[in-house]
């Protein structure tokens, strides 16, 4: 965006983005009436992926701080929600808020240390990874959360929005995670449109220049990390509530950090719609391969009952995207059409 991008221009662009978001969300919200109930679990998984992707994109896409440790935030959210409901019967909505606050505090603290010691690039990515891995190891032997055995969320009778529990197959789960994801996207759009968002982008592009213009670099970097961490924690808290189980590997494992990275990379890093598109591509992969391998066609019969195919597919997709479409699917489409229109 050049200096020509004045208030009214960004104003209409933001309005258009919000309009697309509302219309898109309304269309997606009708899915439970169309989809067979079995597909709804896939749709929920896609939206959890999407929320994680949107969150990662705030810090690493717009903020330019490559995180390889979003599992830390996801796990804190998951365990805060899980612990509060299992031990104290507290509503998951409160658990979500507590988890988001915890994750934001953790992100801001570790981020402050990392920026204070001027970690950049690979070193920053490795530091985020180390923090997530430390929480992983601590959780594995922390008795109040059942250590490696994991927490089981008790099943309630009946249906309750306050406790976020519904009979199996209820579309309410889908609508809840849809609403959370839409809110996260709207928050991202609002953040980018605001003055703070302008500062965040300026810092990503040239930290020294931003600093010499008087932008408080540290404060805005920490703001970005905090927002991203809080959103990721919400995804974690919802995850526990939907699957009714969490353990240290599912919460803090490095696979979780990778799941947060992939939607943006595949869809387009630093774009509003990229993480959503990436999640829609990634989400169904494991179900498709699981179905395929449960009853494989003759050519694939030797793979029956084996695991690993889903990761092979998304790893191959990752390699192809990095080599052929480094801007991601949406980023590539956008620059194709931008070139076409001028």
């Amino acid at each position: 965006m050049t200096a020509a991008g004045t208030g009214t221009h960004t104003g209409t662009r933001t309005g258009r983005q919000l309009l697309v978001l509302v219309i898109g969300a309304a269309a997606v919200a009708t899915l439970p009436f169309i989809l067979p109930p079995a597909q709804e679990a896939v749709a929920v998984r896609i939206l959890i992926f999407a929320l994680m992707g949107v969150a990662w994109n705030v810090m690493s896409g717009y903020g330019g701080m490559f995180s390889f440790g979003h599992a830390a935030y996801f796990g804190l959210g998951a365990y805060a929600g899980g612990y509060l409901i299992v031990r104290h019967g507290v509503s998951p909505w409160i658990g979500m808020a507590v988890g988001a606050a915890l994750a934001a505090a953790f992100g801001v603290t570790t981020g402050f240390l990392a920026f204070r010691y001027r970690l950049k690039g690979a070193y920053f990515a490795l530091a985020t990874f180390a923090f997530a891995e430390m929480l992983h190891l601590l959780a594995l032997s922390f008795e109040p959360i059942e250590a490696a055995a994991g927490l089981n969320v008790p099943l309630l009778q009946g249906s309750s929005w306050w406790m976020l529990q519904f009979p199996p197959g209820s579309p309410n789960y889908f609508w809840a995670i849809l609403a959370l994801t839409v809110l996260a996207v709207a928050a991202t759009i609002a953040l980018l449109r605001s003055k703070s968002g302008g500062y965040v982008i300026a810092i990503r592009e040239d930290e020294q220049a931003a600093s010499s213009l008087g932008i408080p670099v540290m404060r805005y970097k920490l703001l970005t990390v905090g927002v991203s961490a809080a959103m990721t924690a919400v995804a974690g808290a919802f995850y526990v509530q939907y699957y009714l189980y969490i353990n240290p590997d599912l919460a803090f494992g490095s696979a979780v950090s990778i799941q947060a990275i992939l939607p943006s990379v595949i869809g387009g890093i630093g774009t509003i719609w990229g993480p959503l598109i990436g999640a829609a591509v990634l989400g169904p992969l494991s179900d498709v391969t699981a179905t395929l391998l449960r009853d494989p066609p003759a050519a694939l019969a030797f793979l029956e009952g084996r695991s690993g195919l889903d990761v092979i597919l998304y790893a191959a997709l990752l390699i192809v995207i990095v080599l052929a479409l480094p801007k991601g699917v949406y980023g590539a489409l956008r620059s194709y059409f931008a070139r076409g229109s001028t």
Partner: protein
Amino acid sequence: MTRRAPLSLAARLAVAAAVVAVVLVLAYARSGSGIVVSQAVLTGLLLGGVYGLVAMGLTLIFGVLDIVNFAHGALMTVAMYGTVLLASHAGLDPYLTLLVTAPALFGIGMALQSGLINRTMGSSLANQLLLTLGIGLLIENVLLLSFGSEPRSVAVGYAAPLRAFGAVADLTRVIAFLGALGLAALLYLLLQRTRVGTAIRAVAANPDGAQLVGIDVRRMYVLTFALGTACAGAAGTLVAPFVTVEATTGELFNIIAFVVVVLGGMGNVVGALVGGLLIGLTEQLGGVLLPEQSPLLAVFVVFVLVLFLRPQGLFGRSS
């Protein structure tokens, strides 16, 4: 710099030695048994040698290509499975398979760098990191798909416990340690004493300058990645007799090697070996000091401290 560097290096080594001494005393106080401590030190040093070899390969790639290589551990696992297959089907001695696995991994490394990674040289850090992550995940899960999830092991006919200072070490671990040191020395000589090694170091120091004096930089990238991968392969074969071989076994070595690389200074091959020994000690003594926690926790604490306080590593120059 010429006068002060050796002094400050000695000072840094002294600090490292003092820290190790304090930790030893604490470990003795915590466990109340000299044998526990000497066992931890012995196990730590022996495994640390292998960490050093894995990290030497990684630091070479990090230093010359500036790539955070997340595929290193998966490539190491490929060598482990190579050793398992050659030892169980062809009846080879596990250590003889080194003659197959190290060259094979050298070839795989060449293919990866010239076929895939060279295309992203000069692009963003994130792209290269993601590419090696993709390659690592791909290899790991192809192994999982082909060999299933049940762990494999390699039997060594002449395994016997050796004793020193009341501590016991398995012969396989001693062989792995000595093998790692030998290969590390070979790699060091290759880098310091041969024309190719000089060219690699020139590319690491200044790729543009190296290009100007007629060095084929891309070829050096391919060679460096291949050498680094061969290190991972050799380490995979050396550890195969005493680890359970699964598709994810190498992942842990990859993570530890990152820690060692940062500790030893990015691109510093000798630093990687010393760092490997230190991290091996950290892991084992951490296990003694915090028995209810995973020994890896101490490794990550050291890692974060080094990142914050001395990101250029124990042996790097402050830039």
